[in-house]
């Protein structure tokens, strides 16, 4: 059995690719439901194989847990340096297995959810082809055993994200958002490439084994730069400061896409990258500290913005950004297991939140503005209770999943002795509880329904079952790390065995947990006061803090700053070049060439008389000339030498 699952590891990667190709090639010839079935089936098979592989790998001893598939296509590629040999083989270790479990597991739930959610869309088949493509590239990203194939997967998820954000391609906003996401992701791709160049320059290889095995020989300065460039890639993919502006716009995509790509999996690729490259950050403290600072600042930054947004999906997007900030902070602090833990729980409760919100949006015919909701708890009880579970989990209330993972991170930050970051995380924890319950109150409670759409009932079984499963997971998902019984870091121990920071999350700091829990409860209480008990308090705050409110509503004017800093100069330059250069200089040259060609053409046209004999004369003169040149000019010396 073990041999079967280990031999079938490539199939985990292959099934989604085959699914995507099948839907793309044969989708138009089969029923709509058939392509949805293929999409779900391929992910389901991948999930089953991943689970089986997990049961094989996790019980092994740490030395045996890292497994490489047989390398295919190893060899020398003509366009690579001859000493750079890059094979295609897959890496299975506890870290990649954890990610694969989430990608295929949550991916399967979201695929099933999409069967009903996207049912009325005209590009139903295309959607499943794209989603399968995404799962394939994401699996490639986490299963790669070197940075080059990681980058292939990295670019692939960027492509899938681009395609799915722009899925409603008849909306100009969606197209612009897709383009923005792609551009920002490509900035990150360049960062990873630069890191790979540095690795090649110092180690002569880009495979994990070689690079991490020779970390000691690279030197701190180069190692720090590698870490910084990798961080650039992670920042772009995970929507951290300062490349965060694409994520809120990415909510233009369908809600299952937001749940799978822009909450549960793809945006956590940055966390995976840092955790995977932990030997580099272990030996480059400056780069690691930069990771932590970026994560901590983003966690607080995004949480403040989340407090004032009115689009339900945008609030969730900022909350995602903030939670990934927590993960980055954890991996930057060296607590890789804690980061991976929060990734797991976050995938559960954030996918749950998005899918519950999706039920609401679906029921309201596409409405996303929470000012036009309210009082939906009685009409959509299932969405209300599941959303409430997600909100409680993300707020970090005991005993839901978020409590354990967030607590592990805050605990790690406390050990880091970095007071600002510690304060940031604690404040962000309170703000998280506040804006999530602001969302709960404004959407489901707070008086009567304020919108004008008809509210449809929530009956689709394929939508409610995945949401219910995720709700259960959001409750129990954190119990894998109980005090004095830390299963997760035990499972991940082989990957992070050489990390200097203690990975175990078992030493429970009771007072700290209690304090953070109190802060979260305070956030909930404030949300209740301001939006449920005395709504005039929120209105009064709104009036008195108008400037701050505008600042937050516009996300600290990052889009405006980037517009004037990067977009406007390029556009202005292009406009100027068009007006000043293109007409006079660029267009004039071809026109000149045209006129010259016409002139010489008219000259040679005179030779073209149509008279056969004149052609013959020209021919004879030319032949005689050529013969003369051949005999007496070109070969003059040898011909003259002959007797």
């Amino acid at each position, binding site marked *: 059995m073990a041999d079967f699952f280990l031999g079938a590891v490539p199939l985990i990667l292959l099934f989604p690719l085959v699914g995507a190709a099948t839907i793309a090639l044969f989708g138009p010839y089969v029923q709509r439901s058939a392509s949805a079935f293929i999409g779900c089936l391929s992910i389901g098979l991948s999930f089953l194989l991943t689970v089986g592989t997990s049961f094989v790998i996790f019980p092994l001893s740490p030395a045996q847990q890292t497994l490489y598939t047989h390398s295919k296509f190893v060899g020398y590629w003509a366009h690579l340096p001859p000493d750079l040999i890059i094979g295609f083989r897959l890496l299975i270790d506890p870290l990649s297995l954890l990610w694969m479990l989430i990608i295929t597991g949550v991916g399967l739930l979201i695929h099933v959810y999409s069967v009903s959610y996207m049912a009325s869309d005209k590009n139903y088949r295309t959607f499943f082809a794209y989603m399968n493509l995404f799962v394939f590239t994401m699996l490639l990203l986490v299963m790669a055993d070197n940075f080059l194939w990681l980058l292939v997967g990295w670019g692939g998820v960027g492509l899938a994200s681009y395609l799915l954000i722009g899925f409603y391609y008849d909306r100009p906003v969606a197209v612009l958002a897709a383009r923005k996401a792609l551009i920002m992701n490509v900035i990150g791709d360049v960062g990873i490439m630069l890191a790979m160049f540095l690795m090649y320059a110092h180690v002569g290889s880009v495979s994990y084994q070689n690079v991490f095995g020779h970390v000691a020989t690279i030197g701190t300065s180069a190692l720090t730069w590698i870490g910084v460039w990798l961080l650039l890639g992670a920042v772009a993919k995970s929507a951290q400061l300062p490349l965060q502006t694409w994520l809120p716009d990415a909510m233009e995509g369908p809600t299952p896409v937001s749940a799978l790509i822009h909450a549960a999996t793809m945006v956590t690729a940055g966390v995976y990258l840092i955790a995977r490259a932990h030997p580099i950050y272990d030996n480059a403290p400056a780069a690691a500290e930069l990771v932590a600072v970026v994560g901590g600042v983003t966690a607080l930054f995004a949480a403040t913005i989340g407090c004032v947004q009115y689009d339900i999906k945008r609030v969730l997007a900022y909350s995602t950004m903030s939670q990934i900030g927590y993960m980055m902070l954890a991996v930057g602090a060296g607590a890789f297991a804690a980061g991976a833990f929060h990734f797991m729980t976050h995938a559960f409760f954030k996918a749950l939140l998005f899918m519950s919100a999706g039920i609401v949006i679906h029921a309201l015919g596409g409405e996303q503005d929470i000012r036009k909701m309210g009082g939906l708890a009685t009409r959509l009880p299932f969405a209300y209770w599941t959303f409430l579970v997600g909100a409680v989990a993300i707020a970090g209330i005991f005993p839901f999943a978020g409590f354990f993972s967030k607590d592990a991170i805050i605990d790690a930050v406390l050990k880091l002795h970095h007071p600002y970051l510690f304060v940031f995380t604690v404040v962000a924890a309170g703000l998280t509880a506040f804006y999530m319950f602001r969302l709960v109150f404004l959407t489901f409670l707070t008086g009567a329904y304020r919108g004008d759409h008809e509210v449809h009932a929530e009956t689709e079984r394929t939508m409610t079952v995945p949401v219910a499963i995720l709700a259960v997971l959001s409750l129990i998902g954190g119990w894998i790390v109980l005090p004095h019984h830390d299963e997760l870091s035990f499972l991940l121990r082989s990957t992070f065995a050489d990390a200097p920071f203690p990975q175990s999350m078992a030493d429970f700091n009771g007072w700290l947990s209690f304090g953070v829990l109190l802060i979260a409860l305070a956030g909930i209480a404030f949300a209740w006061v301001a939006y449920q008990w005395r709504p005039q308090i929120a209105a009064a705050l709104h009036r008195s803090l108008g400037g701050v409110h505008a600042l937050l509503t516009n996300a600290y004017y990052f889009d405006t700053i980037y517009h004037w800093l990067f977009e406007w100069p390029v556009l202005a330059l292009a406009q100027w070049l068009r007006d000043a250069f293109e007409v006079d200089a660029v267009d004039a040259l071809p026109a000149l060439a045209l006129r010259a060609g016409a002139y010489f053409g008219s000259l040679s*046209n005179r030779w*073209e*008389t*149509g*008279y*056969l*004999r004149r052609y*013959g*004369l020209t021919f*004879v003169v030319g032949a005689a000339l050529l013969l003369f040149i051949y005999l007496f000019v070109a070969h003059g010396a040898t011909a003259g030498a002959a007797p």
Partner: protein
Amino acid sequence: MPQVPLNLYLELSAVLFIIGVIGFLLRRNPITMLMAIELMWNAGNLAFIAFARNFIDMSGQVFAFLVITVAAAEAAIALAIVVMVFRRRENADVDDISVMRG
């Protein structure tokens, strides 16, 4: 019996060829022009055969034979064209046939 040097044959071939060339350029009657072309073919054949004898190599003679057959084909087609031109117009002066001008 003294042998004739190769050069004499080649010179004769060149002279006959140039006679054909000048005839082609001077005459306007397409039939006469064709005959000038036949002169050129034969001048070439003479050179081939002279070389074949000089190098004791039959390839020259075989090539001359092939030239004869190709010349026959050329003459047949060219005369067919001339016949068609004569059918379309009473006068077949080649200087009148310049409609192919570019």
